[in-house]
Every structure is written in structure tokens, then in C-alpha cells.
């Protein structure tokens, strides 16, 4: 790594020479990835828009309608947004009962984002714990945990989604504790929890592999000889080195979580009406594809935007955590050499 670094683009070569910390390096590389940075802003924008516009958990938003109100339908419910800034009463249009499409899309985005974060967080935590423990301690712990992983991996997701309906019947709904905690989105939280509980398997395998190779490395041996506890070795020495794999894969899981929720909605196993998610909006409105396209396109655009930005952020993180990928430049190697020599002259 160090020898070829001189041939590298001077931008990255210099700070490495300056001895920046791992975190600084990662941040620097990440912000060098244009697509990822743009995506991060887009994603942050969507999150802010979704949660401030229609409000969340009883906190009112700045938008005039909510997703349940049924104001009178104007015309056929067409969007009233005229470019560029004349939004009108219902910028995204209205559905057949008159509900405002912007409010519904925003509510849908909220729920889709919540599902995504829960799946990401739960899947990530479980994956890291199970993968890490089995990779570090090995022996019978590993055997048991890995067989558990194998078992969970072959249980079809939609069976769980179907069972979820039965359970959410008793555990959620107005007046239950779950409802009070999650501000009316308890059904969706449960969906996220269920999916999260079985989606960790892929990450667990990766993390285990990473731990297996890291625990044999010299610096871990050194720490062990110096008398470090297991906990210290795991948290101080191994985990920071595996964080790249974890973060990258968690983002990818989150991106596919959104699509998973859409697929479940298509099968009628997603969010329950009258609540809405982006997935349930487009699958309920697919008949309107040719006749009232706004019912279909707005939520669809948000799905794509969220999914794309998460993917690009994941891509940027991958490049940032894995500097090896940045080194190879088939043709540019020559150009870089030329430019760095030019720079040296200057």
C-alpha cells in the first residue's frame, strides 16, 4: 500500500503522508465521492421533508393537510402544482376519496424510512453480534450460532410477514402500548422488527469471516499477550477494523429493505390501510397507471430517490473504507505519473 501510494493522485497521497487518523481518511475519501455526497444531501432532504411536512407522532407539520383528511375533490384530483413555484391546494393531486397525495406520499415516506432504519439497525446489530461472537470465540458457540444462521436463512420471509398480521392484531392498534411508543406507526415498527430479525444472516456470515481473519493477526496477538480482556480486544482492536464491511453491507440491506416493503405491499402483507407506505401507495394505485398517473408516479419517484441515494451512499462508503479500490487506474497511472512529476517541477 505504502509503496504505490506515491504513484497515487497527490490529493490522497499527501494527507496519508501527513498521518491522518482512519476516521479522517474515510471522511475525506467519502467527501471526494461526488455521487455519494449529492445522494447524502438528497436523502437528508427527503428525511427532513417527510418528517416536517405532515408532522410525526402528534407533532403537527407545516403542511395544511394530513394523510387521513378527505377534502372535497377538485376536478379529477389532478396535481395543482404549476411549475415552478405555484403549488396550489394539492401539489401532488388527490386520490379517489379526496385525500391529499402530497400528505400521503410524505406519510408513506415516513413509514418506509422507519421500516428501513429499523431493518438496518436491527439487522446490523444482530448480524454483528452473532457474526462477531461466533468468529471470535469459535468452538461450540460458533457451531451453534452458524447452524442457527443456516436455519433462519432458509425460512421464507413472507411466511413471517403473513404471521405478522395475526400478531399485530393483538399487539397494535389505538390504545395499545406499542402505539403510544411509536406514535401511530406501530404496525410498521413490527414489520421492521420481523424483517430485521431474519435479515441479519448475510451480515453475520460476513462479519464472522472478517473476525476469523482479524483474530489471527499480529496486533491481536500482541494485545492478548499484553493482557487485554476479550471485551477490549473485540471493541478496541477487531471491531474498528471490521467497521467498513459492516457499514457498507448495512446500507445495502437498508436499500433492499425499501423494495422488500414494496413487494410485501404488493402481496397485501405490508402496511395496513388506512395507513400508507410508499410501497402500498404504488401497489394500490397501479391500476391508475394510465388514468391517474400522479397516484402512481409520486410515491414511485420517492422510492427510487431513496433507494438510489442509499445505494450511492453505500457505494461511497465502500470506496471510503476500502482504499484498495481507489488505487487502480489502468490508464491514469501514466497520466498521474506525468502530472506528479510536473507538480514536482513546479
Amino acid at each position, binding site marked *: 500500500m505504502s509503496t504505490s501510494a506515491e504513484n497515487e493522485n497527490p490529493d490522497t497521497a499527501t494527507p496519508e503522508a501527513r498521518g491522518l487518523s482512519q476516521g479522517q481518511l474515510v471522511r475525506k475519501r467519502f467527501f471526494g465521492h461526488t*455521487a455519494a455526497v449529492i445522494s447524502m444531501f438528497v436523502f437528508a432532504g427527503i428525511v427532513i421533508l417527510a418528517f416536517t411536512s405532515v408532522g410525526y407522532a402528534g407533532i403537527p407539520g407545516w403542511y395544511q393537510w394530513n394523510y387521513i383528511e378527505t377534502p372535497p375533490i377538485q376536478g379529477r384530483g389532478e396535481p395543482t402544482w404549476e411549475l415552478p413555484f405555484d403549488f396550489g391546494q394539492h401539489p401532488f393531486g388527490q386520490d379517489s376519496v379526496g385525500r391529499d397525495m402530497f400528505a400521503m406520499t410524505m406519510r408513506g415516506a415516513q413509514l418506509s424510512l422507519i421500516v428501513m432504519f429499523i431493518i438496518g439497525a436491527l439487522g446490523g446489530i444482530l448480524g454483528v453480534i452473532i457474526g462477531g461472537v461466533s468468529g471470535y470465540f469459535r468452538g461450540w458457540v460458533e457451531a451453534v450460532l452458524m*447452524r442457527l444462521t*443456516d*436455519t433462519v*436463512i*432458509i*425460512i*421464507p420471509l*413472507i*411466511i*413471517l410477514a*403473513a*404471521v405478522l*398480521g*395475526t400478531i399485530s392484531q393483538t399487539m397494535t392498534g389505538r390504545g395499545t402500548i406499542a402505539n403510544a411508543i411509536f406514535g401511530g406507526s406501530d404496525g410498521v415498527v413490527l414489520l421492521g422488527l420481523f424483517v430485521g430479525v431474519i435479515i441479519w444472516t448475510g451480515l453475520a456470515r460476513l462479519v464472522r469471516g472478517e473476525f476469523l481473519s482479524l483474530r489471527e493477526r499480529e496486533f491481536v496477538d500482541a494485545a492478548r499477550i499484553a493482557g487485554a480482556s476479550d471485551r477490549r480486544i473485540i471493541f478496541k482492536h477487531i471491531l474498528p477494523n471490521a467497521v467498513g464491511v459492516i457499514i457498507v453491507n448495512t446500507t445495502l440491506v437498508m*436499500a433492499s429493505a425499501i*423494495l422488500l416493503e*414494496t*413487494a410485501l405491499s*404488493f*402481496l397485501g402483507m405490508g402496511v395496513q390501510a388506512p395507513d400508507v407506505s410508499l*410501497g402500498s401507495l*404504488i*401497489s394500490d394505485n*397501479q391500476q391508475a*397507471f*394510465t388514468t391517474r398517473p400522479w397516484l*402512481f408516479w409520486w410515491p*414511485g419517484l420517492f*422510492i*427510487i430517490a431513496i*433507494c*438510489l441515494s442509499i*445505494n*450511492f451512499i453505500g*457505494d461511497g462508503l*465502500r470506496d471510503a473504507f476500502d482504499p*484498495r*479500490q481507489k*488505487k*487502480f*487506474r*489502468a*490508464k491514469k497511472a501514466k497520466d498521474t505519473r506525468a502530472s506528479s512529476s510536473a507538480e514536482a517541477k513546479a
Partner: protein
Amino acid sequence: MVTYIVRRLVTAVLILLAASFLVYLLTAASGDPLQQYRQSSLPNKEQLIQQRIQLLNLNTPAPLRYFDWLGGAAGCLIPFAAECDLGKSIQGIEVTTLLARAMGQTIQLVTAATILAIIIGIALGIITALRQYSGLDYGVTFMAFLFFSLPIFWVAVLLKEYGAIGFNNFLNQPNIGLSAMGIIGLVAGFICYLVPKSGVKRKLIAAAIGFVAAVALCWYLDISGWFLTPGFGAIGVALMGVAAAYLVTVLTAGLRNRKALYSALITVGLGMIAYFAIQPLLDLATILMIIILGVGAVLVGVAVGYLMGGFDRRQSMNAAGLTAFLMGFVILLDRYMQEWPEYFNNSRIGGRPIATIGSSTPNLEGNFWIAGLDIFTHLLLPTIALMLISLASYSRYSRASMLEIMNQDYIRTARAKGLTERTVVMRHAFRNALIPLATLVAFDIGALIGGAIITEAVFAFSGMGQLFVDALNAVDPNPVMGVFLITGILAMTFNLVADLIYSVLDPRVRVKA
């Protein structure tokens, strides 16, 4: 090695047992099997409910019913046992029959899409890796992520609207308008603009060539009425053969290897003779004949390469063999196209060839070629839809893998030896980049047999996914368990296969006994 496999198999059986028990309980808990009768106002509702309770044995607790089922299913796990009883569905059909049929449909649906996604995905991944952070790389990455982000039923609706209904309307009046030609030209120009490695001037020239070529092609197709009577003709076949010969030579041996180029070109010549010679034979084609002809063509190509000899015989043989295969493929395509008008005007087709549903036109009678075209027109849209969404993972993984390989020391060594870039990429990097993909491919194939639930639903294929979802909705455990058993066994098997392949391909990996 053998102990390792045996041990893995034993654990696999245990895991399957545990998982199947769980799945059975979950299925039983997932809903109300009497749902269909609850809303019924039939006078004999009670009686129907009793019948259903007896049929599904609902008064026995689910854990006990599982062992009933297991008793029958155990027969299937023992190889060569005559007894394989997976029970019956609510409609009284043997689950084994249902599974066999559903699997057939699913395999028909996903095979072409999977193969294409793997080939195109890997090719894109390699190319984008070689042009990392170029316009092409960003473009392909963006498109791959975009397709990945699209919900598949949305893609399906769009494809049906424009790819089938729109295209069929177009075929009834196949005139490409000027503006359409312009747009096609611009798109082609833009793609060509991304291709050259660097230099604005070169990019612009490429874009111009792309634009002109695309517009000219459109114009030719338009005035020659190609859409109604397609075909390459002898000249087209020859041109494509020569192009294939050059391309194959570039990839396998490099143009500097004249012997390889000449053997490829000779193969094209032989192919042209065969093109005229076998036309009457092709009228009587069967699938077996096509396979034999294909194998024969490759053998002829290899023989030509062998006879041409040269310092590296294998390169000539590879180049000529591959060219022969491609040539055969072009001839096959040409023959299908010749049959197109016949198919198009068939009264069952009625001038609307591209289908939106199912896998064949009912009661369509015709020879091998008509049947082939019918399968093609039905599988076209679902294949595109499935392929687009699975492109992303293949292209991203192969890109990452290729990038990692290109940084290895031995690649630098190869370059230092003075090998050409082509040899470095094709011989040293490409092959090793494929190794980690073996795992991915193995997993994917295992998962795909499980069915593409939504694609099946939208395109009215009743494959494994559909069977699974329908049974789950009816809370009918036997078909659910049948599908689960197949997917579970496949997942286990491919998991094992992936590990074994890995250890064979990558000598650094050893399986521990």
C-alpha cells in the same frame, strides 16, 4: 473431503428438520383456513366448514399435524424410495404434481433472465472496472442502481404498455418517424460518447459515428420493411460473421495473432457455405438437431484452428471455435426471422406478436420455428424485467472483484514482463475476478428456483412463487411445505456447492474435514 461433505449433509438434514417444523407452525399460525366460508351466506355453510376442518385435520394441534406431514415427506428424502407423499392441496391435488409443474414454469421464466444477467452483468462490471471513475463507469453505475431501485411490478406495467402493446401497434404500421430517428440517434451517440477512454475530440467523433450509424440503420430498417419481414440475408450473415471473427480474435488471441484471425475468418467462410447448404434441412428442425448442429459447428471451428496450427494452437482453436458458435447462432437467428411473417400472420397471433401474459399461445400449431418464436415473444418481457433488476448485483460485485484483482502484485508483474494489456486483463485478471462470483451465482440460482413471486403474478406464470403465495393465503400448509422443502434443499445444496467450487477454483481455500 468426503468426511467434510458427509458432515455437511448430516447437519443440512438436521437444519431442514428444524426449519421445516418452524415453517409448519408459522404457516398454521398465519391465518384462518376457514376464511373463505366465514362471509358465505350459503345455507350449508356449517357443513362446508366441517368438511374443511376434516380435510385439513384442523382439530389436531399444528405440532402434531407436522409429524403427520413429516411421515409422508420422509419418504421423499430417501433416494429411490417409491413413497413420496407430500400430501394434497385444498383442491385435492397431489403436492408433488403441483411442485413439478410449478418448477417447470419457474425454470422457464428465470433461466434466460439469469444467464443474460450473469453474462451482461459481469461484462459491464469488468468494463466499468477497467474504466473506473469515467463517464461510462458513472453512467453504468447509475443505470444499474436505477434498475435495482425500481419495483418490479412497475417495470412490468411499463414494459407491457410500451414493449408489448405499443410495439405491437407500431408493427401494424411500422414507420419510424423523423423525430423518433433523431432521438434514437442521440441516444446511440451519447452511449458512443461514453465509450472512448479519454479525449473530448475522440469522444465527439465516436458520438458522431454512433449518431450517423444509428440513424442510417433506422432508415434502412424503415424503408426495407424490415420489421414485417426481418432477416439478415446472406450479406448480413456474412458481415456479422466477419465482425464476430474480429471481435473473438481480439478477445482471445489479439489481432497480432494472424493465424488465429485467419482460422476465425475461414470458419466464417465455411459457415456461409453451411448457411446455404443446411436451409432445407432446417425446415425439419427439432431441438436435438439444433444441438447436434451447434456442437458440430464448434467442432469444425476447433478443427480449423487445429489445422491452421501456429505457435499457439490453442488460441487459434479457441478463436475459431467461438466464432463458429457465434456464426451458428447468427444462422439460427436468421432462420427464425425467415419464419417471422408466417408467425406474425397466424390467425392465433393476429399481427400482435409480443405477448403480455403466459408462456405460450394456446392452441398455436406450427413447426419448431413457430413454436420457438412463440416462446420468444412470451418470454421477452418477463426476461427483460427480471434481468434489469438483477443486473445491479452482478455488475457491482464483478466490478469490485476486478478492481481488487487489478491491484494485486502479480498483475503488476505481468505488466512489467511487457505483456499486452489484453493479455493481462483477459488471462490474468478476468479469470481470477470470476472466482468470488461463483458463490454469488450459486446462491442466486438456488434462490431463483424458489420463484420470482411478483414477476410470476404480473405475467400470469403459475410458478413456485405463485404456488407458495396462493397456498399461504389459503392457509393450506401442504403446498407451502412442498415449496419450502424444495427451496430449502436447494439453498443447502448450492451453499455446499459454492464452498466446494470455491476450494477448487481458489487453491488458497481448503475445506477442513
